[in-house]
C-alpha cells in the first residue's frame, strides 16, 4: 500500500533522491576546479599563439602596406627603409630543394630497409637507436658537421677559398641531413601501418620484394610518408642555427651582402654564399635600430610563417584525413 503510493505519486522525485544519495551530498567542487585548470593549461597555449601571431602581424604588416612587393623584391641593405629579403627567399627555396632531393629519397629508402628488409637483430636495433639519437642531436651541432665536413668537401669541387667556401650547397646538404631522421622515423611508422595481408597477397601472385613494396606498400603508406616529408620541409625552412654555423652571411648588408639574385631557380646559387629567411630574421633582430629589430624582422617572419604554416597545416589535415579513413 505504502509502496504503491510512493511509486505512483512521484517516480521522478524518487529517482532524483536515489541519484543524490548515490552521488553524495557535496557537489564535486574540486573535480570541477581540476578540470577547469586543465582546460586553462591548454588554452594558455592558444592565447600565446594568438598573441604571437597578432604581434607579428601588427609589427610586420605596415612594412608591406607601406612598401608593397618592394620588401620581398628588394636586396639586403644597411638602410631599414630600403632593405628587402629577395636573397633570403632564394636561399630558403634552394634549401627546400636540397631537402626534397636528398633527404626524401634517402629517408624513405632507409625506412623501407628498416621495415621491409632488415632482419630482427642487434645491428638493426642499433641502427634504429642511432636514428632516434640523431633526431635528438641539437641543430647547432649539425651546423658544426656542415662547417667541418660539407664546407670542406665541397670546396674541393669548386676550388673556392676562404669564406667563399661557405656555400648554399653546404647549407642545403646540412639541413637535408638534419631532417633525415625525421623523414626516416615518420616514413617507417607509415610503412609499419600497412596491413600484412596486402604484402602476402602480392607475394602470393609471385611478386618480388621490390614489386611488393612498389605496388602495395608505398601506395598504401604514401599519405603518411608525405605528411612526414612536409613536416620536414617546414622544419628545414624554419631552422636558423645550422645556417649561422655553416656561414650564412650576417651583417655587412650595406652592399646587398654581395649576393646577386638574378633568376631564383638558377642552380648556380648553390655554389655561392647565401642567406636564408631565418638567418635574415636573426640578423634583423640583432640590430639596435627598431625599424630593423621590430618591423623588418616581423615582416620577414610573416613571409616565412606563410610558407611554414601552410605546409604544416597541409600535413596535419592530410594526416587527420588519412587516420579517419583508416579507422573506418
Amino acid at each position: 500500500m505504502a509502496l504503491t503510493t510512493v511509486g505512483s505519486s512521484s517516480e521522478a522525485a524518487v529517482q532524483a533522491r536515489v541519484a543524490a544519495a548515490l552521488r553524495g551530498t557535496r557537489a564535486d567542487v574540486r573535480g570541477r576546479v581540476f578540470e577547469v585548470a586543465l582546460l586553462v593549461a591548454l588554452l594558455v597555449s592558444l592565447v600565446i599563439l594568438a598573441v604571437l601571431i597578432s604581434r607579428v602581424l601588427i609589427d610586420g604588416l605596415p612594412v608591406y602596406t607601406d612598401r608593397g612587393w618592394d620588401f620581398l623584391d628588394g636586396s639586403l641593405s644597411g638602410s631599414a627603409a630600403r632593405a628587402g629579403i629577395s636573397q633570403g627567399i632564394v636561399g630558403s627555396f634552394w634549401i627546400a630543394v636540397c631537402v626534397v632531393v636528398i633527404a626524401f629519397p634517402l629517408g624513405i629508402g632507409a625506412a623501407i630497409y628498416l621495415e621491409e628488409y632488415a632482419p630482427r637483430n642487434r645491428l638493426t636495433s642499433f641502427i634504429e637507436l642511432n636514428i632516434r639519437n640523431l633526431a635528438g642531436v641539437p641543430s647547432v651541432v649539425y651546423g658544426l658537421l656542415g662547417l667541418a665536413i660539407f664546407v670542406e668537401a665541397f670546396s674541393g669541387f669548386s676550388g673556392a677559398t676562404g669564406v667563399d667556401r661557405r656555400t648554399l650547397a653546404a647549407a642545403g646538404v646540412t639541413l637535408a641531413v638534419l631532417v633525415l631522421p625525421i623523414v626516416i622515423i615518420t616514413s617507417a611508422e607509415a610503412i609499419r601501418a600497412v596491413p600484412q595481408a596486402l604484402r602476402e597477397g602480392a607475394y602470393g601472385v609471385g611478386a618480388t620484394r621490390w614489386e611488393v613494396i612498389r605496388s602495395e606498400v608505398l601506395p598504401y603508406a604514401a599519405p603518411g610518408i608525405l605528411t612526414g616529408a612536409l613536416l620536414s620541409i617546414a622544419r628545414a625552412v624554419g631552422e636558423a642555427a645550422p645556417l649561422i654555423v655553416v656561414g650564412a652571411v650576417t651583417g655587412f648588408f650595406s652592399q646587398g651582402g654581395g649576393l646577386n639574385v638574378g633568376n631564383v631557380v638558377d642552380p648556380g646559387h648553390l655554389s655561392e654564399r647565401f642567406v636564408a629567411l631565418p638567418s635574415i630574421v636573426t640578423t634583423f633582430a640583432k640590430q639596435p635600430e627598431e625599424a630593423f629589430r621590430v618591423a623588418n624582422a616581423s615582416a620577414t617572419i610573416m613571409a616565412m610563417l606563410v610558407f611554414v604554416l601552410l605546409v604544416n597545416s597541409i600535413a596535419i589535415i592530410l594526416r587527420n584525413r588519412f587516420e579517419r579513413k583508416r579507422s573506418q
Partner: protein
Amino acid sequence: MATTALPPPESPVDLSGDPRRHRRERAMGVLFTAAAALSLVISVLILVSLFSNGLEFFTDVEWSRVFDAGSWSPRQGEFGITTILAGSLIVTGIAMVVAAPLGLGAAIYLSEYAQPRVRTVLKPILEVLAGIPSVVLGVFALNWIAPEVVGRFFGEENSSGSMMAAGIAVGILTIPLVASVSEDAMRSVPNSLREASAGVGARRMSTTLRIVLPAAVSGIVAALILAASRAIGETMVVFIAGGAADAATYTTNPLDGSLTMTAAMASLAVGTENVRGAGLAVPSLYFVGIVLFFFTFALNLIANRIVRRVRLVY
C-alpha cells in the same frame, strides 16, 4: 586405362622468370641498405667533425682558464665553461617551469577529459605551435616577452632580453613536445583500469590522479627529459633574446643577460671568418659542441630507454 599420359616436359620449366627482375630486386635491396647505413655514417661524421676540430682545444688550452675563469669571452681567451653551463641550466630550468605544467595539463585534458569533437578542435593548436620556427619565438621573446612579461612582473627591462625572457620562450617551444609525448603515454593506459576505478566509485579526478598518472608515469618522465634535452639544445631563442652578445660573465640571476652553450656557439660562429687563427676561439666552438652533444645524447638515451620500457608493458 584410356587415360593418356601427359607428354613429359622436355626440360624443367624455368619458374624464376626474367633475370632482369632479379637484378633489379638485388639492386633495390642494396640501395635501401645503403640508405640505412648512411645514418651510421652521419653519426660517425658528427663525432669526427667535433673531435678532429676540438682536439686542439683539449691539448692547447690552459685548463685553469676553463674551470676557474669567471666569464666566457673566447676572443679574449676566457673560456669559463661554468658561465655558459649555468646559463644553459637556468634557461632550461625556466623553460621546464613553463612547459611542464602547461604541457602536462594540456595532455591530461586532451587524454582524459576532452570529448572527441573538442579534441579535434583543440589538438591542432599544439600542432601549429610545434611548427613555429624557433627564430620566431626568439623575436617574440625579445620584442614582447622581455618588455611585457618580464618587464612587467619582474620590474626589470633589459632592452636586449634576459635569460628569463629567453627561458619563457624556450618553454613555450617545448610545450607541444611535453604534451604530445605524455598524452601518448596516458592514452596507452588500458581503458579497463579507468573502468575498474569508475566501477568502485572513483570520480574522474581521482581516476586521473591515482590511476592514469601513476600508470603513465614513465612516459611522462620521458616527455620531461626529452623536453629538457630540447631546451638545452635550443639555440636561436637564447641567441636573439638572451641579452648577451658574444661574451658573458658568470651570473645566476635569471634577470641578467647571459649565454648558454648553444648561444655561445652561435655567436662564435657569426664571427668565425674574422677570428680564424685568433687563438683557440674556433676550436672552442667545437669544444662546446662536444659538451652539448654528450649532454643531449645522455638525456635522449635515458628518455628513449624509458619510452621503450613503457611500450613493453602495454
